[in-house]
């Protein structure tokens, strides 16, 4: 942006005119705009537009080169990727059984999809994750912020406040049990108001607003670089009516999935989507399957299906690149998403439970 006008790849006559008019940096050219530029140096509007386009391309190329390039290709070995993945944080869900089958929790840089019938707990898990992503690092969290895109209007802030208050209390108990100074210090900024102020809420009323919001997300995430979670609750609702042309819907969903993958990777955040269930009529019986069709099934990296078994809620890990398919039971209490039976542990070991990052270190020390 601070590039000198003289270094830009323009015709020499044009450069001379710019210098004579007093322009020194590329930023000044961009600020002037096409109309101003054509008046100042006496060229036609079209030529002024072409000049500005060249300037923009050059500056864009510079920025990409200095940033190490989302556009440029990077080479790295699989070992580097493995180390990167192992050091990556997980967003815990406070249900240790679910964290275990996911391999630690909801993983950053991946898209996780939660499917289930209405009332089974998808929105509850999303609200829980929006709070858990903010847990400070010394408690085993990723200390991030959350973006919540709501298409159904099911984000009830009173419920989020209850979940946040329960999380804060849980961390206070751990800090008291462990009596460490850094834990207590971290808790000073971990309060209800603080948690609520770092959940960025967007309400999209139809699919056009959703598409527009996702186009604007990369810029928003660059401005709010601490965001580590993007929730879209739910992705199916705006796309399941209004569409006579199903191929348009497939195309839009694929485009959306691609953009979300790029966002997840570039900004190191987890993307969580919730989906509805629909009935698939087979030969002899009908089954419930996730909505939006077969091709949407490829969009998410990890797929969880929530369902009922009599009056017990179950979560099945249906698709995952690294964990095996399994089913666990969970509970939704007034504190949020929890295990079915609280693990029968004493205070001291309970302290190590939500610290998955600390565990590997002690294991290595033992070795």
């Amino acid at each position: 942006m601070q590039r000198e006008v003289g270094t830009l790849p323009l015709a020499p006559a044009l450069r001379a005119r710019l210098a004579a008019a007093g322009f020194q940096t590329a930023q000044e050219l961009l600020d002037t705009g096409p109309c101003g530029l054509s008046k100042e140096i006496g060229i036609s509007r079209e030529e002024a537009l072409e000049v500005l386009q060249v300037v923009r391309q050059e500056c864009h190329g510079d920025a990409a080169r200095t940033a190490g390039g989302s556009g440029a290709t990077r080479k790295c070995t699989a070992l580097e990727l493995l180390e990167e993945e192992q050091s990556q944080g997980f967003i815990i869900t406070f249900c240790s059984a679910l964290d275990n089958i996911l391999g630690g929790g909801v993983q950053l840089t991946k898209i996780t999809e939660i499917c289930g019938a209405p009332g089974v707990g998808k929105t509850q898990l999303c609200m829980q994750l929006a709070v858990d992503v903010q847990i400070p690092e010394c408690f085993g969290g990723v200390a991030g912020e959350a973006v919540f895109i709501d298409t159904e209007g099911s984000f009830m802030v009173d419920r989020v406040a209850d979940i946040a208050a329960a999380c804060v209390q849980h961390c206070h108990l751990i800090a008291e049990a462990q009596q460490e100074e850094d834990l207590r210090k971290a808790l000073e900024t971990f309060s209800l108001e603080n948690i609520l102020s770092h959940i960025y809420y967007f309400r999209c009323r139809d699919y056009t607003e959703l598409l527009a919001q996702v186009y604007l997300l990369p810029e928003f995430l660059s401005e709010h670089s601490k965001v580590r979670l993007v929730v879209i609750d739910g992705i199916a609702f705006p796309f399941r009516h209004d569409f006579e042309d199903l191929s348009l819907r497939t195309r839009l969903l694929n485009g959306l999935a691609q953009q979300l993958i790029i966002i997840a990777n570039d900004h190191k955040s987890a993307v969580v989507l919730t989906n509805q269930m629909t009935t698939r009529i087979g030969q002899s019986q009908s089954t419930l399957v996730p909505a939006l069709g077969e091709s949407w099934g490829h969009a998410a990296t990890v797929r969880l299906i929530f369902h009922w078994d009599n009056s017990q809620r179950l979560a099945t890990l249906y698709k995952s690149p690294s964990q095996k398919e399994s089913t666990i039971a969970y509970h939704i209490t007034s504190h949020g998403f929890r295990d079915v039976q609280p693990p029968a542990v004493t205070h001291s070991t309970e302290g190590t439970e939500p610290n998955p990052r600390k565990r590997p270190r002690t294991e290595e020390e033992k070795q």
Partner: protein
Amino acid sequence: MDWDQFDLNPKTIAALKKADIKSVREVLNLSGADLQRLMKLSSADIQCLLKTVSLTLRRNSMLTALQLYQDKDHFTSQHQKLSLGCSVLDNLLKGGIPLVGITELAGESSAGKTQISLQLCLCVQYPYKYGGLESGAVYICTEDVFPSKRLQQLIDQQHKLRADVPAEIIRKIRFGNSIFVEQAADLDTFQQCITRRLSLLLARGMVRLVVIDSMAALFRCEFGPAQSALKARYLQTFGAQLHSLSTRFRTPIMCINQVTDAVSESEAAQCSCRVEGSRVTPALGITWSNQLLMRLMVSRVPLPRHSPGAASHCAGSMRTLHVVFAPHLPPSFCYYTVQLEGVKGIK
């Protein structure tokens, strides 16, 4: 669409007009590559176009959860709910019916669904201070005739039901004047009613409650098992239209639904009806359940054995109101009776 008012490059504006792109929706429906081909612009220009168009649509749309939590304004706050007129029932629902979204009230016949909805039509007319929304209600009947005699009874007894409201305020409200009754016995009439009449009444601010009695009646006769896809499409369209009206005007929509027998255990499980000992599920299936924010079920149950005192007090008319699912409520229930002055919960 007047592209000139957008903050765009004149070259882009000219290309938009030449490609005959008339709305923001058309721009967003096309992929980046399609736009490049159609408008013959570079990819940087197209990115700029998409960002500008998206910004115009979504300017100032961000709120933090803290702002939502601290919002106390009558019209926009999430804490504002529509009271049911009884403190016990309101406690079950943590305030009342949420203002944005479709709430369903399902149950067997004569369980009390119409009684509760009539009561809501009166409650909505009270001032904000007493849990109302200071506005009228629309009651859409799809099968039975509107129970006007019962409504008159309830109006006459309002002072008895709402002992918390001063008598002058009750006297001042013209209850009958603000309840608009619509009849819609088939799908087309219903569609007309929602898209024309309802939006007009809502836009003028004359109503802030919509009761539909009942959804299932519209679909019972017209669709055989082979036309389930068509039925699903209608349900989704109605659900989306009602949802969008509810969001635009912050108006609760109460849909009354009937129940059918649950043939197998798995069917009952699918609709997540955890009502104890109940073998019924709400009609219209999972397609309709996906459109709902909150589902309530009412039933007449045998008198509870462990409270003989209550049994002698209201013999035979004890009912339960269950919260089946809601994003802010645990599955819970309470008892209530239907009396002359209306529906009253029992502690």
